[in-house]
């Protein structure tokens, strides 16, 4: 991972925005960009998941390639000439962000919002009414126009652990991966339907408690848009009391079993409001089970007394 000490036998040198970068063979263009100090927007990529390269916000221009290529999944090759800030790259990134903004509620996707500002995405272009003066942003709407279709879904609140608000879902596949081959191997959710109607679903949209879901919360932890949200966060947001800046994060080890999962306790006003695990932790890769993720209520129990270690059965 460290570009400073690449294995000389398998080091690959490529050019990023005119600068030479050397990284180990097998790494992605994204990793090379990071090594070169070039920041790249990503939505569907995460360090602890297999790249699915579906959001396309990370595309870069590769000399000799007819189309742009996804930085997050394309392995480096010696001599690649990459541009990360050409007109073509900026256009496609802006359009991806604009498309998402025109289709989804991104109000709780702060990173996507930041990049949208950076690239000047203007989702309103699709719904501003038609005007004769041809002013920018005057396009599809108007008397003859159509309201742009949006992902329209009611929020699903089926239990106390997490909610699903699929109008925020950008279909990044992260939750599906976390529930499936990449972590949990429960396969409770998958993409169903096709095209713009594709949605994250259990079979026949069965309610979660009746589905295969084991409430590990790994899908919630990887969701970049707040489409999946812990109930604690959802309830606090509903009353305007979700204040990330006032939260402290304490690292500890889960006490339920002997695996040794690291926990990050997010604490606000002296109460745990969320539990995550570091994505780079060798045991969890960021993933937990229901006990570590949700089994902290006892901490707040009024008459809590730790069992004596002398007598506790081992």
């Amino acid at each position: 991972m460290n570009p400073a000490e690449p294995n000389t036998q398998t080091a690959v040198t490529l050019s990023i925005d005119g600068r030479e970068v050397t990284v180990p063979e097998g790494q992605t263009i994204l990793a090379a960009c990071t090594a070169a100090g070039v920041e790249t927007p990503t939505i569907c990529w995460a360090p602890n998941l297999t790249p699915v390269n579906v959001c396309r916000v990370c595309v870069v221009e590769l000399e000799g390639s007819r189309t742009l290529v996804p930085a997050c999944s394309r392995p480096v090759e010696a001599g690649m000439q990459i541009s990360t800030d050409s007109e073509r790259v900026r256009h496609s990134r802006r359009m991806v962000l604009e498309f998402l903004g025109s289709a989804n509620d991104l109000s709780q996707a702060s990173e996507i919002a930041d990049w949208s500002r950076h690239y000047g995405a203007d989702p309103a272009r699709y719904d501003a009414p038609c005007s004769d003066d041809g002013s920018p942003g005057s396009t599809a709407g108007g008397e003859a126009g159509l309201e742009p279709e949006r992902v329209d879904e009611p929020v699903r609140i089926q239990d106390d652990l997490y909610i699903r608000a699929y109008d925020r879902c950008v279909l990044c596949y992260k939750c599906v991966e976390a529930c499936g081959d990449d972590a949990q191997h429960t396969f409770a959710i998958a993409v169903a339907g096709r095209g713009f109607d594709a949605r994250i679903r259990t079979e026949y949209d069965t309610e979660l408690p009746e589905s295969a879901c084991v409430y590990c919360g790994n899908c919630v932890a990887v969701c970049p848009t707040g489409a999946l949200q812990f109930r604690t966060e959802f309830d606090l947001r509903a009353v305007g009391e979700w204040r990330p800046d006032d939260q402290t994060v304490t690292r500890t080890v889960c006490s339920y079993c002997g695996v040794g999962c690291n926990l990050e306790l997010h604490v606000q006003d002296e109460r745990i409001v969320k539990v995550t695990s570091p994505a780079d932790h060798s045991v969890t890769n960021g993933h937990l089970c229901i006990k570590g993720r949700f089994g902290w209520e006892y901490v707040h129990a009024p008459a809590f007394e730790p069992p004596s270690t002398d007598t506790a059965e081992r």
Partner: protein
Amino acid sequence: MADLHFSDAEPTASERQAVLAALSVNGAGDGAVVVDHPRVVRGGTRRRKQLRHLLLPALHALQREAGWISPGGLNFVGRTLGVPPAEAYGVATFYEMFRTDSPSHELSVRHVCVDPICALAGAAPLAEHLRSQGHAVHEGPCLGQCERAPAVFIQGRREPDRVPADDSGPDSLLVSVTASTPESPSLLRQMIERGFDNGESTSMEAYRQRGGGAALDAALRLGPDDVIAQVSAAGLSGRGGAAFPTGIKWRAVADGNGPCHVVANIDESEPGTFKDRLLCELEPLAIIESMAVAGLVVGAQQGWIYIRGEYPLATQRLRGAIAQARSAGWLGDDAAGSGQQFDIELRRGAGAYICGEETALFNSLEGFRGEPRNKPPFPTTHGLFGQPTVVNNPETLLNVNEILRIGPEAYRSVGTEGSPGTKLFCLSGHVGRPGLYEAPFGTPLGELLELAGGVQGTLAAVLLGGAAGSFVGPDALALPLSLEDTRAAGTTLGSGPVMVFNDSADMSGVIERLAKFFRDESCGQCVPCRVGTVRQHELVTSIRRAGGPTEPQRELLGDIADAMGDASICGLGHTAASAVMSAMRLGLLEAEPAGEAVARAARERSEQEREEMGGTARVAQQRDSLGDSAS
């Protein structure tokens, strides 16, 4: 998979039976899967991956039996094949031919094509008429019968699927304009000479009598390296749309290690295309023969036919051909006496244009959603089941037979330097005789139209390459139909559809329908295409209602087109704006009558061209045909 979680829903006895019959070894009857593999009986965790490729056949069986994929039926399939129910549901909801809610009737479903050619021919009144007669009607995309529009396909409920037009005998028109000497390449000559004798098309004896088997003999005589050398020397390029050199593809797979596959891509769903259907109906044994050649040349043990679900007659004939080829020893443990094992399995698609994209096809066949994979890696190294795979269009495969029959030099005697040989063109719309035409590459468009009985009325536009192609105007009649000339002119041949529209056609309606096609057929995986196709359709609809585009609308369409073309995963997204953009350039989106709009746009363009230095025509930016040229 012991720990999969299923609901309590149980299958009905008939659902259970239908699924088991579909999965049974050598199960008989239409819809049955031919499975000769010992895999079916193996247990353990490997079983999951080994059985999953039976998901699509099992879902077909459920749909036919119950009229939908019921929760109980899905559970049964999931348990039997080790597929999690959420994933099986995700697969079932991907396809047009499956439904996951209970139908309120016991009827077979009449699929009526509403794509442009059928729309011109009265698809809407036909659908209305069928409904009024009490039929269950589903309006959907091109059914690959554009030469006999409006098209209907009946998806059977507890009865075999069928196409009503097949009952009245094959009335399709076949015309070949290649020189009539047997020494020049022609895919259609034999079929034309013997007329439409269906008995002959499926009989091994008759096939042998007219020279069938020669390609296989030649391949055994020459050996793999020489076959590939001949295919390369002939300059054969893929006929499925991307025009990739076939020799390079075969060489790469032959050079690979470990198991590999040969796949015939007969998903044919590009609006305006019906050639593969006719080839399979009229010369199915030739397709099996060429697959065997491919299998022996690259060293594959397994060949696969993936055919679209709406082609019942072609499917039936291919199944018959596979059976005959087994009896004749072409397929089996010692295929054609080569000492190599090669056999073929046939799989039906279930209504999804995207599954014709080669990597989507692999996923679909493996029992996953038909979502394309990012390339690279290419199928030649990571194809079906992650193994090296040759995937070819049937027209490409039949050309291999021709090359082996007459040799590469004679093969190159027709066509152009850059595009040797002949091309099959599917003519539909406002021409005198819609049908399948074979002409040397380089034949001018106007000549082809004349051959097809000429344009009916005054020509407004021709859509080359189907929905993924682009419109050309009446000024393009001299355009030589070769790969290089169409590319230079900013258009494409694609898989060979030529859709003709006269000035009575509602062109903005045609274009709106094309935009709707992409919106419906996008797999939804990547953002540029999933949302871009929707925004494009909305804009085109607005423009049509307003009677023409405003400047910001033009700009926005261009912005959408650029992003889809640059940032999408696969060829569907790459080409989804091509027809719309070409229509806008030709003035076909304006409210005025198409004829006048085209004339005015042509005037404007020539003025603009004169303004540009040196009179160099500003050739419309057009992306390569189907976007996967490096496959």
